[in-house]
């Protein structure tokens, strides 16, 4: 099950039915979201924003550290060495845990394990 969602439990996309054997990366490669992003159909790049002084237009998704380093995925540093990287990791995990909360809620409500 692959899920994509924001803060107030609004699930944009839920891909269910992948067999149990593929890992996160393989599921992402075959999901319709990733296919749309690589084909340029999603997301709309009409707003620019400026993190760290560089201007970007492509919005991104927060993911775990296991995902590959694509432009539309923002993962945390795998081995944070400097204080700046550690602070970034802490903040990123704080926002990224939204999706873990979703899985918790889904499994609790539907009593599936």
């Amino acid at each position, binding site marked *: 099950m692959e*899920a994509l969602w924001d803060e107030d439990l609004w699930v944009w996309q839920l891909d269910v039915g992948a067999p149990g054997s593929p890992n996160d990366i393989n599921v992402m490669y075959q999901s319709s979201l990733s296919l749309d992003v690589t084909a340029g159909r999603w997301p709309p790049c009409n707003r620019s924003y*400026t*993190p760290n002084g560089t201007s970007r237009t*492509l*919005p991104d998704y*927060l*993911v775990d550290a296991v995902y590959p380093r694509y432009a539309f995925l*923002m993962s945390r540093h795998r081995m944070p060495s400097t204080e700046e990287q550690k602070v970034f990791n802490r903040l990123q995990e704080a*926002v990224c845990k939204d999706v873990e909360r979703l899985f918790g809620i889904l499994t609790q409500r539907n009593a599936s394990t």
Partner: protein
Amino acid sequence: MGVDGQDPVYIEHDFNTRFCVPRAVLRCGSLEVKDTTFFRRHLNSTSCPQAHQLQKLVAVFRVLAYGHAEDRSDELVRQIRLTILYSVKCLVACIVSRWESTYQQRPNNVELKTILDRNAERVFPGCMGSLDWSHWACHQCPRGMARSY
């Protein structure tokens, strides 16, 4: 209210246990599928009426809610396995075509702007949300009889 203005045969709890789903869900499903070609009641070549749509729906919900094999409830609803299998497909297709655009859609520009603004306050400008993946086994999956045939 039941048939002809009489009291319903089953109270809500009995209805749940008997038909696997609450009354509102079964009613909603039956209203949704009643005009589809497959669920409409047909006459076969000997002019006998075929299965009623509620008959088919009961079988579908048994498969979906209890994870029964398709031929498990054939005596109850008097249908062949393939009919039940096809009913499941038709109902799921109905549900997807009717409610997919309501519940599963990507945000439009206005909603995306709200999300981006709110995430910018949470020190991640340009973040549209989070994405992850999790194993979630379907405990109703009828795998007990796998590879038996």
